[in-house]
Structures are given as structure tokens and as C-alpha cells.
């Protein structure tokens, strides 16, 4: 059996240490896909137009999220780096439910991947920052966090990996299969039809992503533990 949700797995280990029950460094990395920058988006009737507005709000900004997810982690990291106060509203079973919660008025902001958030713009969701080095082609008018003075690059990378001790032959077989799959035109067209951008990174690039993610989570482990404790 393999898995894909790396950010959650790496973050869990950084926050809970040995209590997480696994050592992610021992997993066998294959390849990765869905390299998507995270964003901050706000509800239609809120006054916020930029990160600076969040800082000027004079109150903690309520964010809807799952509670213990990648979204929570990136809210905590962004809030710490950008210096805005925040409040977590946990318990939404996934990004669509949290976004609907924001549109209903349960909170004022959400933080999810750009491609996902893009689906809800016509419903009134307003993105105010993209945590990437450059502006995204889908949102040419939305400034990056870097442009607003905070050089944050927070990505959602879906990594294919195998359990510790998996045979190198099996790993190589799957790496080849995944590489061929991401070159198959029919497969790529089907992904595009579902409104996803089919990105692909080989094993070496993916190991670099995982290493950067591990460093990021280690840096903010104390803040993440504090955020988890506040929810409890």
C-alpha cells in the first residue's frame, strides 16, 4: 500500500514527534504531482483586500478549516510570518465544506490550494494572496505574498510513497509506471477535463520537496503545537 498526502504526514511527525508512530524519512519516495501553491481567500462581504488589511483588522481573523490539516498548518505559518492575528474554526470535513462555511458566514477566511479555491470565485470567494514566488497564470491579478512583503512559498505536493522496507525493484517499477502515466496524453487530457493541472516531478525533485517541507514544519513545530492545543 502507498499514500500521497505528504504535507499532513510530514507535519504530523514534526508536531507530535515519536507519538506520530512513524518516521517519514524511512518511507520510500516515488514521484509527486499536484504541485499547487496555497492561498489566502476571504468571504465576499469582508473588508479585506490584502495581507495588510488582515493585520489592520484589530481582531483575530477567523479561518474555517478541518482542524489538524495542511490548511491549519499553513494558516499558522502565514500568520506567524505575516504578523496577523487569527482564530481557527475547526471541524469542517474538507476544503469544500470549509469554503461553504465561509460563504455562510461561519468565518471570514480560508487557506487552500489555488486550483481548488479557483472553483469558488463565482460564488464570491476573493483571493488576496498566493504563497508562491511568482503570480499564477490563473490569477494574474492576485499578488503573491512575496509582493506584499512576505516571501512565503507554501505548496501542496501530492507525493507517491511506499512503506518502509518496500523492495527497490517494486519502487523502480512504480516510478517507471508513474512516469509513463504522466506522459500519456489520454490520462493528461482526462485530468485537464476535471480542471486539474497535471504536474509531475521525478524522484530527485520530489525528495527535495519533502526535505524542504520537513524543514518548514520543524521551524514552526512550536507554533503548530500551540494552535492544536488551542483547538482542544
Amino acid at each position, binding site marked *: 500500500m502507498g499514500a500521497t498526502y505528504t504535507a499532513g504526514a510530514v507535519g504530523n511527525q514534526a508536531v507530535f514527534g515519536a507519538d506520530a*508512530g512513524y518516521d517519514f524519512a524511512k518511507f520510500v519516495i516515488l514521484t509527486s504531482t499536484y504541485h499547487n501553491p496555497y492561498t489566502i481567500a476571504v468571504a465576499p462581504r469582508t473588508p479585506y483586500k490584502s495581507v495588510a488589511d488582515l493585520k489592520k483588522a484589530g481582531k483575530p481573523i*477567523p479561518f474555517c478549516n478541518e*482542524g*489538524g490539516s495542511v490548511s491549519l498548518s499553513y494558516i499558522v505559518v502565514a500568520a506567524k510570518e505575516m504578523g496577523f492575528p487569527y*482564530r*481557527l*474554526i*475547526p*471541524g469542517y*470535513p*474538507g476544503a*469544500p*465544506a470549509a*469554503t*461553504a*462555511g465561509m*460563504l*455562510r458566514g*461561519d*468565518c471570514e477566511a480560508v487557506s487552500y490550494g489555488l486550483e*481548488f479555491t479557483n*472553483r*469558488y470565485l*463565482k*460564488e464570491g470567494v476573493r483571493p488576496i494572496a498566493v504563497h508562491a514566488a511568482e503570480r499564477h497564470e490563473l490569477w494574474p491579478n492576485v499578488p503573491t505574498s512575496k509582493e506584499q512583503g512576505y516571501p512565503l512559498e507554501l505548496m501542496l505536493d501530492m507525493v507517491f510513497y511506499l512503506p518502509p522496507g518496500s523492495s527497490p525493484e517494486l519502487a523502480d517499477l512504480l516510478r517507471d509506471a508513474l512516469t509513463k502515466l504522466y506522459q500519456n496524453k489520454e490520462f493528461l*487530457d*482526462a*485530468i485537464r*477535463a*476535471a*480542471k486539474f493541472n497535471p504536474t509531475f516531478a521525478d524522484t530527485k525533485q520530489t525528495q527535495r520537496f519533502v526535505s524542504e517541507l520537513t524543514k518548514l514544519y520543524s521551524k514552526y513545530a512550536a507554533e503548530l503545537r500551540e494552535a*492544536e492545543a488551542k*483547538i*482542544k
Partner: protein
Amino acid sequence: MFDGISVAASALLQPSALAFIILGSIIGLVAGVLPGLGNVQAMAMALPFTFGMDRVTAIYFLSAICASATYGGSVPAILINVPGTPASAATTIEGYPMAKRGEANRALAISATASLMGGLVGIGVLVVTLPFLKWAALLFGPPETFMLVLLGLVTIAYAIQGNIIRGLAISGIGILLSLIGYASVTGVYRFSLGSKNYLWDGIEQVAFLTGVFGLSEAIQLGMKGRVAAHAEVVTLGGFRGTLQGIVDTFRYPLTFIRSSVVGVVVGIAPGVGGSVSNVVAYAMTAQISKDPLIGKGSVEGLVAAESANNATYGGDAIPTLAFGIPGSVAMAVLLGGLNLHGVPVGPWLMREHMEIVWVVVFGLLAGTAVSCVGGLVLARWLARITLVPTDLLVPAIVVLILTGAYAIRQNFWDVVVAVLSGIFGYFLTRNGFSLLPLIIGFLLGAVAEQAFIQSLHISEGSLAIFFTHPVSLLLFLGVVATVLYSVFQRLVAKGVAQ
């Protein structure tokens, strides 16, 4: 919109689509009948087989599986007191006593007819609300969900006529059992007895339900040593029983409409599905009904339970199609199927692929119709299970339950839970306790807790949130009205007695 209807309807008339709808309905029906399997497992297993299909046929296939399992789950609930899926928990309360009276055929026909009619209402509401779907999907937030659950809990506490304290005590045990393990909002683990594995996920629902209902009944049957229904007391056999069951369903139009509405509303609320609507609608009917047979094989109670759980699909589909928020786990698998076939989910679905929305609607409708009509046709033969001698039936029930409990997660501890729940259920029944409050507490406890904590997070600790949201306030007034009505009823009864 009309273009979408015509595309979906013309695809429905293609032989391949029709064949896969029938196949999907049969798969769903069989999965529903077997404890431990349901529409979620059947859809997940069928998903890889849709790779080679065109996307419309694949979505018809998956929708048909999704809609047909609930009726399937009611068949063992009625015949052997084992709910095939959690959505048939309340069905056992009225269906099985009818089967024991020799009216299994009639009960199966009521179940099929009420399921079909409930499904039609649910899908009808979905169709009518299509233009307002986004608004409807945003209707239920945490405070509204909490009040809905509170209404269900209060209703059942008073529905156990003459024994409120016992009812509350047992539902309290159910709530406590539901709180074992991981709390989804706070991430806290509680009552897990130090277990770092099994109890972290809480008590497995299907293992608990099949144990409490099915295994406890198997113990009773084994001790009594007779058939579930004696041949000499089979009162409505053959086609006459089926016909009577169909007619019975239409004798309670208000019950049917009320329960279907409950089913739809529960479906819209995120995270709660047929297992909740089935018990909430039944509890409401048990409180209001004047039928002396309530709890002992009431037709009205069975109509309520069966129309609600099937109407839930229409409600489930509202947030699923409007916002990409799966209204249930089965809808999450369906969304996975849409993505797999290159259909973008979320608000884009209704903007750009209205024909797919109609394919889902027609697929759910067709799956419900095929399974329920099939159920009506087969009822007279299925009913014969109740005439099987105990020494054959009891081992078969035990094997079915224990295999089903193990099949869910291939975890031996689920088998242990089923056995312990069976012994507990037997103890309760033998001492005159109703199992319904236990089940309602178990199914609703964790949902109520999550919605309550989430609401307080939103309001920064203020309880005013439950009274300032219009739908939540309306549901709260329903809670107050239920309490006042019950008190009034009791005062009147006391006055008459004096």
C-alpha cells in the same frame, strides 16, 4: 437546464445505460442485504470497473448502486432483525415484529413501497431546488445541525411512552458509547482505555448495530428454540400480502410526507445521512402516533422509517452537486467517480455540466425504482426465510453477523464488539428496555458533540448562536413544542385517569 435533461434522458434510453442501471441496482441491493457491506463499499469496488465505460453510463451505474443499497439493508432488518446497513436500524423495530407475526411479506412490501415513494420525494425536492441549490446547500451549518440532532434526541426521549427515565438512561449510554475514541473537532482521544489502535476510531457502527439487534435476537431465538414466525400464523402470504403492504403505505400520507421531509432535511445537513434520518423520522412518528402497535410491529412506524432513509439521497445530493461537499460517504465516492471520468466537481459542475447533474438525478431515481420494484416482486419468496427452523436460522444469522463485522475492516476486534453488543442487547431486551434510545444516542451523540463544539468556536463561546440563526431557531422551537406537547399529553392522560 432543458438541454441537460434531454441529454441525460436520451442516454438513459440507451440499452447499455439501462443494462448498467439494472446491474448496479442488483449489486447495490445485494450489498445492502449483506451486513458489513453497503453502497459505499459496493461503489468503491465497482469504481475501477467503470474505467472502460463512457462517463454517462459509468455515472448511471454508480448512482444506481448508491440508491439501491438502502432498500437492500431493510430486507434482513425485517426478516432476521439484522440491519443490513445502519440506515435500517429503526426498520428492525417495526419490521421484525411484523415478520414474527407472520407478516414478513407485507412488511417487505411496505418497505419497498415507502422506500420508492420516499426516494421519489427526495429526488423531487432535489429537482425543484436545482435553481436554488447553492442557497439550499448553505442552509445547514453547525448550529442548525446541533438543533436538528437535539430535536431527534428529545423526540425519542418522549416517544418511549410511560418510561421516560429508562429511555433517557439508555440513550445516555448510547451517547457515551458514541464518544469513545477520536473527537473529530478537537482531535482529543477519550475513553479509549489506553488503546492506541482499535478504540482510537471509536466503536464500529455496523458491528455494534448488527450485534445489538441481530445477535441479541439470535440468542433469544436459540433459547426459545422455534422458528421466527410459525407457519400456522402466517397471515398474509403470497401476492395478497404484497398487495396489502402496497395499500398500507398509502394509508399514512401525513406520516409518509413528514418522514420524507425529515429525510431530505437530514440529507442536506453535512455529515449525517440515512442512519440518522431513519431513527429521527421513526422517533417522531412513535411520539405522535396513536397506533397501539408502535414498537411491536406498527405499519405506520415502518412507513416512517423506510420513507425517510430513502428520501435522504435527494438531500445528500444537494450539497454534493451544488458545492462539491459530499452529503454522505457514498456521495464522496460518487464525486470520486465524477472526477475519475473527467467531470470537474464543485460549483463548476452545475455551471458547465448540467447534463451530468441530471444523469445523477435520473440514476438515483432509476436505482431506487429498480431495487424497490425488484423487492416487491421477490417479497413473497424472501418472506419464507422467517419459516426456516431455528436450528438452521440461528447459526446462519450468527455467521452472517460475525462475517459482516469482520468484513468491514478485516479487524477481529469488530467481531468482539458485535458479540459484546449482542449480549448487551439481549440483556436490555430481557429486562424490558427499548433498544431504540440506545441506537439513537449512539448514532447522534458524536454528531451533536461535533456540531455543538464547532458552533461555540464560531460564536467565541456564546450560546446565542443557536437562537440567532433562523433555521436553528426554528428547530429549537420544534424542540420546545415537542416537550410542551408531550407534557400536555401526559397531563391530559393523568386528568382522564383521575
